[in-house]
């Protein structure tokens, strides 16, 4: 195992983590501000990917596809917020879970209805194709590097928005005391719709970015959703900072675990058994990480008590 390989795997973990952050940020915002658990967040990820694939396919422009993913996911977000989610804020978590579970069924089969049963095509644009050679001789795909940079930029933008802008102040106020901001004359229903649409747009954007290097298909959102849950449980629900740290931790654990665990077991047993045991354990590694964090900090790393 060389240093280069380890460094490349760390970059991969970082890239995976940054993408998870885009998913987790929306979930944690929606929970932090509205107290809503949204299982259908993965469906918005899928909507973004399908919108990007359809528009990029029709126009030939990846950038237009990205724009479409933001617009469509935000629109889908507004639509379900106004029609369904709005009625759930005052309900308990149980009813939120069931209603958003129902939304998954509708979105998944509805998407198949519209786009058919086969995966869609979405490719990275030519100007982001190819590889670059980084220091220490690491050959890395440009597109993945772009994902890391774009993801970090979005994270910075979010931090800035929440810390510095008027809407951010309202969001923070909403997390702390809902009655108060209503009393201050803020249109709370509009604020909620905005936050939900923002979360949806982030998820859709992540879906489009990732869709270009993966398979755009029905059901693509749910595995990511469950990972995003793990992320925000580790980071602390409602905390954007926690979501960021949690996403990087999960991304790195998942990638490095898959790579290092089989290597580790090769020291202990014969290779074929080591590969199998290592792969089995690697598939559980992030859940073990979550359990370990919970042992010491039941509210996550950055959760409020």
């Amino acid at each position, binding site marked *: 195992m060389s240093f280069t390989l380890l460094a490349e795997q760390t970059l991969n973990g970082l890239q995976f983590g940054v993408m998870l952050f885009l998913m987790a940020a929306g979930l944690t915002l929606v929970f932090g501000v509205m107290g809503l658990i949204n299982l259908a967040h993965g469906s918005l990820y899928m909507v973004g990917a399908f919108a990007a694939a359809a528009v990029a396919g029709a126009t030939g422009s990846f950038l237009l596809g990205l724009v479409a993913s933001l617009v469509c996911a935000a629109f889908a977000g507004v639509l379900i917020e106004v029609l369904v989610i709005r009625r759930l804020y005052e309900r308990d978590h149980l009813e939120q879970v069931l209603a958003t579970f129902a939304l998954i069924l509708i979105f998944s*089969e*509805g998407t198949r209805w519209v786009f058919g049963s086969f995966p869609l095509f979405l490719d990275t644009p030519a100007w982001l194709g190819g590889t670059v050679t980084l220091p220490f001789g690491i050959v890395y795909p440009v597109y993945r590097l772009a994902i890391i940079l774009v993801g970090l930029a979005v994270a910075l933008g979010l931090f800035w928005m929440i810390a510095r802008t008027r809407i951010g102040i309202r969001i923070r106020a909403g997390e702390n005391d809902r009655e108060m901001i209503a009393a201050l004359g803020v249109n709370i229903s509009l604020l909620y719709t905005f936050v939900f649409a923002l979360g949806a747009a982030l998820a859709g954007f992540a879906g489009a970015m990732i869709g270009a290097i993966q398979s755009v298909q029905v059901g693509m959102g749910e595995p990511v959703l469950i990972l995003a849950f793990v992320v925000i449980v580790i980071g602390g629900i409602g905390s954007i900072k926690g979501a960021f740290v949690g996403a990087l931790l999960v991304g790195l654990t998942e990638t490095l675990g898959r790579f290092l665990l089989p290597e580790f077991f090769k020291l202990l047993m014969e290779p074929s058994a080591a590969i199998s045991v290592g792969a089995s354990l690697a598939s559980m590694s992030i859940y073990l990480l979550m359990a370990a964090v*919970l042992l010491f900090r039941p509210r996550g790393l950055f959760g409020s008590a």
Partner: protein
Amino acid sequence: MKIQPDAAQFPLAFKTVVLAGFKAAKPEVLLNAALMLALLAVPLWAWFADEPFLITLTTRAVIFAIAGVGLNFALGFGGLVSLGHAAFFGLGGYVMGVLAYHAQTYTALLDWPFVIEGSRSMLVIWLVAILLSALLALGIGALSLRTSGVYFIMITLAFAQMLYYFAISWPAYGGEDGLSIYVRNSFPGLNTMAPIQFFAICFVLLILVLLLVKFLARSAFGLALGAARQNEERVQAVGQMPYRLYLIAFMISGSITGLAGALFADLNRFVSPTMFSWQTSGEIMVFVILGGVGRVFGPVAGAALFILLEHSLGGLSDYWHVYLGAILLGVVLFARGGLYGMLTGREAAHD
């Protein structure tokens, strides 16, 4: 393959006992009775009409109902919203699969430090499934109950998912292929391969589980649990530790769902990691909510309705999940309290 009629009446005797237990004819009690009678009447009719598949379908509903009753105990009475009950359902299934597999191949489950043999007896399998599920619930609960609310939902989901991936990648028991058992396990005095007899077993177990939950809900433990759900501080002041209360409730809940898992695997003569999937957790929760949270018989109504919907909507279109989703959404938004809430009035009787 017909059986003696008296074997089929054996659940009827139980039915009478249950009915006798209800003194006041409240609408909820009437509904409970109607529901159980319908669940019994359908397979009996199917048996006479020689429609074995209908019996199998009702058995499926009864087993799902047991799983739902298990979740309902944690969810409806303890307020613990677990989105990971597939963990117990799957574990129960694998207990049946692994024990029967070893018995079928005449290999020992464990040679060292002591020998553990497989088993083809349902009674042994149920016992092991219940105990191991309780143990798993102890582990998951001990960690997840350190948190509450939405954390609890996500953590239980994540643990079930962990077991799902483990089951897929662990090659010893079939991995994703799962395990096939060619004939159902045995129960003294019955031919479990006859659909009506296996139905009878499941139906009796459902009644026993319902009685247990009713009893527990009215016991000192159940009252303390209900109080804890409504007001944690107050119970702490009285000296009961809610954490321990919750943990015990979670273990009871998990073991009931584990039992259902073992029955489900026996119904299909097959077990696979799908039983651990998050969709399974979601479906068990759907049974509870469709029927009515916190009603002892709620999950029975929910499971029956779910099977009915699945069976009838499937014929409408390839995309029937859309309709199912729309109906579920309608229930949450407009029919709070599920079927029981609609039919017997809003106030959930947490008894």
